[in-house]
């Protein structure tokens, strides 16, 4: 029983990371109908920037905020410079451009920082926290906490600010929004910026666990895809629930199904994606889009 609770909590911790990245994917998908295949690599690159700042001697939380800010501006610039020219093009074109970004970020990280793994600090004490008989990693609890705080902030932003409303409107009905005077194209860029900032947080939370290396996000991105698919690409709430669900499932399956263990973890994500797409392509919370032909 204790093992079960521990596994669930650590599943929630990784799930929070998947949720952040899945939310980043969903935000871009909602606004532009495109999945950003470079999301994970952008997060990885932001984490490397955080590492550089830490090496320069900045305290952790200053670095944290600075990295989020840099990632936001970076995401905005990527949208303006790279994605903007192919806005409105066929999906294949945009997917190929994001794949181009994926390899560029991956190779830049390898080029600048080398492919050798680096340790990345956690802001939380290494001492485990004991509640009753059950031991929790402080980093796990901290990561869950940060995810929840960020999600709440994002919810408040979209629900109660004019800018948030404008962004939602631009995603839902670009033409009418433009008629109301919303600068739709800039809203998309803002969406990319926010998504990139989210990715940066996910990256900084996961790096202490998996170590910093240019390929650290590929598996996590796969799980974020699974999370977004399970929750539904059209629902931010779904992405969050999906993230936690996928994180817990991954951990429980890894612990209790002996032939899977850690060696087939990616295959579990693949199976989840394919099963959900076959059984319920819109995911748990997604809405069906009806298209006129």
């Amino acid at each position, binding site marked *: 029983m204790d093992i079960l609770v521990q596994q669930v909590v650590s599943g929630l911790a990784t799930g929070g990371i998947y949720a952040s990245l899945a939310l980043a994917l969903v935000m871009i998908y909602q606004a532009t109908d495109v999945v950003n295949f470079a999301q994970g690599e952008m997060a990885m690159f932001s984490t490397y920037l955080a590492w550089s700042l830490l090496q320069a001697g900045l305290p952790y939380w200053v670095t944290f905020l600075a990295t989020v800010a840099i990632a936001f501006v970076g995401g905005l610039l990527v949208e303006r410079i790279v994605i903007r020219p192919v806005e409105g093009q066929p999906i294949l074109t945009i997917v190929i451009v994001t794949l181009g970004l994926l390899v560029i970020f991956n190779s830049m990280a*390898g080029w600048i920082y080398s492919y050798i793994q680096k340790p990345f600090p956690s802001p939380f004490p290494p001492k485990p926290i004991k509640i009753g008989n059950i031991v929790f990693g402080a980093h796990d609890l901290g990561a869950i906490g940060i995810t929840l705080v960020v999600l709440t902030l994002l919810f408040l932003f979209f629900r109660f600010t004019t800018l948030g409303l404008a962004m939602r409107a631009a995603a839902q009905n670009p033409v009418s929004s433009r008629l109301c005077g919303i600068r739709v194209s800039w809203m998309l860029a803002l969406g990319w910026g926010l998504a990139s900032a989210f990715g940066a947080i996910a990256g900084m939370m996961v790096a202490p666990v998996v170590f910093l290396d240019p390929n650290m996000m590929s598996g996590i991105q796969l799980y974020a895809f699974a999370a977004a698919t399970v929750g539904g690409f059209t629902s931010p709430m779904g992405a969050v629930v999906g993230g936690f669900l996928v994180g817990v499932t991954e951990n429980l399956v890894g612990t209790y199904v002996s032939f899977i263990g850690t060696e087939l973890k990616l295959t579990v994500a693949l199976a989840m994606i394919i099963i959900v797409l076959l059984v319920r392509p819109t995911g748990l919370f997604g809405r069906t889009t009806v298209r006129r032909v």
Partner: protein
Amino acid sequence: MASGIGGETKTAERAAAASRGGLADRPLGVAAVVVVLLIAVSLPFIMSGFRLFQFTQVLTYSIALLGLNLLTGYNGQFSLGHGAFYGIGAYTTAIMIDRWDIGYGWTILVAGIVCLVVGFLFGRPALRLEGLYLALATFSLALAVPQILKYFEHWTGGSQGIVLSKPKAPFGLRLTEDQWLYYLTLAVTIVLFVLAWNLLRGRVGRAIVAIRDNHIAAEAMGINNARYKSVVFGVSAAYTGIAGALSALAIAFVAPDSFNILLSITLLTGIVIGGFATISGAVYGALFVQFVPNWAQDISKAAPWAIFGVFLIVFMYVMPRGIAGFLHLVWIRLTASAVSREQGR
């Protein structure tokens, strides 16, 4: 008729018009093919060793690229995971030779059949997935395959992979192993290119393109979308699998980590650079993905991928039809008057 994206429809019509003409109406095209074939046949006498091996790789890549282009370029189904089929083909060959001692010639055929079946089975549920979701599913497949290969250690040798020995030339031919492999690969390449060309220029080819341009209109005209799409997926996977099998023989080694997501991205880069929905594009793309990383490697280990990424993006901006499309455009400009007279415009 079809109300797809303007450019694509036009290309399709042009391709159809060109294919209706057949061989006799395109003397220059035939001449170009003959020249390329002559060069290809004489290569082993001009260069040897590693250089020749590189050209064997160009041939295997061009088979894989042709396969991917059948699916993505002609049929409009995304695959970001064709590296997986390349890997399955390579491992089929390696396991059959290493574990069961079967003649390598058969293993190429079996690799093709295995990938045909796997591709068909993967393509069947993928029918329900449109555009982006198919991209997602195939991308996940590519990410998961190296792990699956490592898991079945008993057959695949785990992360150590399987070492093979290069086949010797049969019938007492006085060729080195590299030369023989080159000719074998060249022969398979020619057969597969002719098959694809034949497939695409007739009724089947028009159906495949029609599904891409407007699947509802195609369905309305009596084309069985489901059957065509899953068969094209299978055939495409078979091409890629055969390419994987040939490359396993040429390299004489397979390891799970060489069939990672970057291989799939390499193949996609190849068709983007070579040109969507063109047959000759497969060759241009193959030359690019084989030689450009080699030159870039001198700058840095990471440089080849950076260059791939930049080329992917830049080609999407300025040359979305790739090198083949660009050459075609140049050709049209040069012969504009002749063409317009011919078509009566």
